[in-house]
């Protein structure tokens, strides 16, 4: 169960591979479910040139660790990994990675999706976009309508 707040660009695929090698016993897991959120270059009809992601140092990590523990209690999972970028981002940069390892696919799917929904709705992160119209804070559009 690992939570990482990253200030530099990261490769989600290398990150997952490295985590798997370091933390999962070969042959122990049958199912890995993954979600990667990536910065788009458009939002609400405007071109987005850049973004800054703010967080609440301390509370953000604590919240992500809490939901990781809750997922492990609720589903039969072997391990989970949450990585989230903060600071300045450019289009096509990965923002978030959620990965769950389990013996069974239903647990991996359910837990990864629940973690993403909790993260989107409650984890203290805030996006400020730089568009051709200027800077703006992204407003919460409710579950499922954004990446």
């Amino acid at each position, binding site marked *: 169960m690992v939570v990482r707040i990253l200030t530099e660009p990261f490769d989600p695929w290398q990150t997952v591979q490295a985590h798997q090698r370091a933390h999962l016993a070969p042959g122990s897991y049958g199912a890995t479910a993954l979600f990667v959120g990536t910065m788009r270059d458009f939002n609400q009809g405007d071109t987005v040139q850049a973004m800054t992601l703010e967080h609440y140092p301390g509370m953000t990590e604590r919240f992500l660790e809490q939901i990781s523990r809750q997922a492990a209690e609720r589903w039969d999972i072997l391990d989970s990994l949450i990585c989230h970028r903060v600071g300045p981002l450019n289009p096509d940069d990965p*923002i978030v990675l959620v990965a769950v390892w389990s013996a069974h696919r239903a647990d991996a799917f359910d837990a990864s999706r629940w973690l993403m929904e909790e993260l989107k709705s409650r984890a203290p992160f805030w996006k400020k976009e730089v568009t051709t119209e200027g800077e703006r804070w992204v407003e919460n559009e409710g579950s499922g309508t954004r990446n």
Partner: protein
Amino acid sequence: MTITVKFFASLREQVGMADLHIDCECADTVAEVWQTATDLAMPANTLMAVNQEYVEADHPVRDGDEVAFFPPVTGG
């Protein structure tokens, strides 16, 4: 008593402060911390935390607490 107050994102910009300390017996609840720390009315959708856990506006505050105010989250 001393309370650390933090504002994030758009609220930080509106209030014009990121962190401050209030040092008086002037706030028993999170809502009263807001009133003491700012001149503004609290926006309706403001989220609040005490010691990095979500709370409601009527949550009591104690000496040494860290109280945070922030807008709806938009991570992920």
